[in-house]
């Protein structure tokens, strides 16, 4: 299908972006790899698409002793290819390679995926496991949101109306850290039916019809998620 009519508004400054996003029916566009399918199916009909991917800082990558700050418009393919520094002992590159398909990963962005907040997507669960922090900007300035407070419900984030995501801060895993990742889906690249993540001292179940769950034990989650987390733990501890 073709999308409903909308206005396309590319913006070059944060001020212009926030002003455009304050309009009724405005929606930010980054890679569009989740948004465009829903628009083409006419499930989402924004009045204005505010293209934020060329804003200053959106593709900036900064490595510090504490970790890595990734601009929201860094693509999955860039993470897959190691074009950004690795602070997670290969974990994020491994995850990125399993997201959708290469043609989608070339355009899809980490920030867009987090803002779309599909529970079956990879990054929202990974950010909870890594203890990442979202950097959001709005009319009131910047604020920091912990990953575990990010997804409020499927497709709903902690962003207030008019706010947008600028960057993600990912804490560095200790060198040599072991991790496990299990994504259960019907076919490579499809939406996950269950996600299991095991990092040092951390277990997360994702794609559980709800925001990702930090676990103390493998219990109280759907059976398939329990399988995914069990596999992830076995992979970490192998």
């Amino acid at each position, binding site marked *: 299908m073709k999308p409903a009519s909308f206005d396309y508004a590319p913006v070059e400054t944060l001020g212009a972006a926030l002003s455009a996003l304050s309009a009724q029916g405005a929606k930010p566009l980054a890679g569009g790899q989740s948004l465009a399918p829903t628009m083409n199916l006419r499930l989402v009909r924004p009045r204005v698409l505010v293209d934020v991917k060329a804003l200053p800082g959106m593709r900036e990558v900064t490595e510090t002793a504490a970790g890595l700050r990734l601009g929201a418009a860094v693509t999955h393919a860039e993470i897959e290819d190691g074009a950004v520094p690795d602070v997670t002992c290969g974990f994020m590159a491994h995850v990125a390679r399993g997201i959708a398909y290469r*043609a989608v990963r070339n*355009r899809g962005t980490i920030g867009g995926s987090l803002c779309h907040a599909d529970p*079956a997507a990879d990054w929202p669960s990974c950010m909870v496991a890594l203890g990442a922090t979202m950097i959001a900007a709005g009319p009131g300035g910047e604020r920091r949101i912990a990953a575990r407070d990010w997804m409020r419900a499927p497709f*709903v984030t902690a962003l207030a109306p008019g706010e947008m995501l600028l960057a993600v801060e990912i804490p560095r895993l200790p060198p040599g850290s072991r991790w496990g990742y299990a994504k259960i889906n019907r076919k490579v690249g499809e939406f996950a039916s269950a996600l299991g993540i095991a990092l040092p001292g951390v277990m997360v179940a994702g794609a559980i019809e709800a925001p990702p769950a930090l676990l103390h034990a493998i219990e109280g989650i759907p059976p398939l998620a329990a*399988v995914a987390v069990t596999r992830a733990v*076995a992979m970490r501890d*192998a």
Partner: protein
Amino acid sequence: MIALTVNGEERRLDTPARTHLADALRDGCGLTGTHIGCEQGVCGACTVLVDGKPARSCLLYAHEAAGKPVTTIEGLDDDPVAEALRAAFSRHHALQCGYCTPGMMVTARDIVLRLGAVDEARIREELAGNLCRCTGYRGIVRAIAEVAANRPAAPAAAPRREAPKVAAPAQAPAPAVELPNRIEHRETLSVPLPAAWAILSDPAKVAACLPGAVLTRHEGALLEGRFTASLGPISASFAGQGEWACGEHAGSVRGRGRDGANAAEGMVEFSLSPAAQGSVLDVVLSWRLTGPLAQFSRPALLRGLVAGLADQFARNLERSARGEAPAKRLSIWALIRAWLTRR
């Protein structure tokens, strides 16, 4: 007016913002080598190069591509890798109807250039985003493997670690039902059974308590109305008809409705039983959904929506039984609260 650079040539197009790149290439530039399949990023037939990298031209609006080099299958005529792939595709019978071929070629070229000599398993993984409706994958994989084998292997990447297989916990098989999706939900009501039943047995009062529901006609067993629900940015408003049946502290509504191309058929069965403090409402919702919404949505996501709606319905019913006006607006925060508290 936008300026596209397609296969090295500048093309000026007057096209609305909603035109995706695939349509702009086919209709605006006359380059019909780019094929359109699903228009939702799944089939890969429309894959072209944008900035030299494969991209879905259905998931990229033409205005976004302005100023970026775009290469279509027509632009790969003189490309040496594409030439080798064409010959290999021909040798290995890697196309039947040819519909997927332009997208396959663009993806195959990317596999060869980016990964070099790779094994068949990796080729199949990389091809997962390109569907061949003739299912002729064997020939396609062999053709790519042959061309890739003549190239140096990419810098040795560490072998990809895989999570080990573990046995799934045993689950009872789902019962065969006429309506394929089913959710059971229980709500505890703070009002006694007679007061709750006085509301539940009246469709008008039920509609008044159910956020998003509007009852426009109620004659005997026949109901007509509209139901609107939202999940994040996605919202659907179904208008339709139903039949109402009511027994001893139990009843059902069976209905069908449409929202544009989406069609839904569903049944709500409810029963009320007494409890020490108030009463207990059991609801079974079963439904079938067809159209774009069904293509997109995973039924699992609706479980949360239903839980949120049931919670709001129950609180509204309690308010109504106490003679207060129900909160009619579908509050996303109430849905979120239901999500957060249900585990």
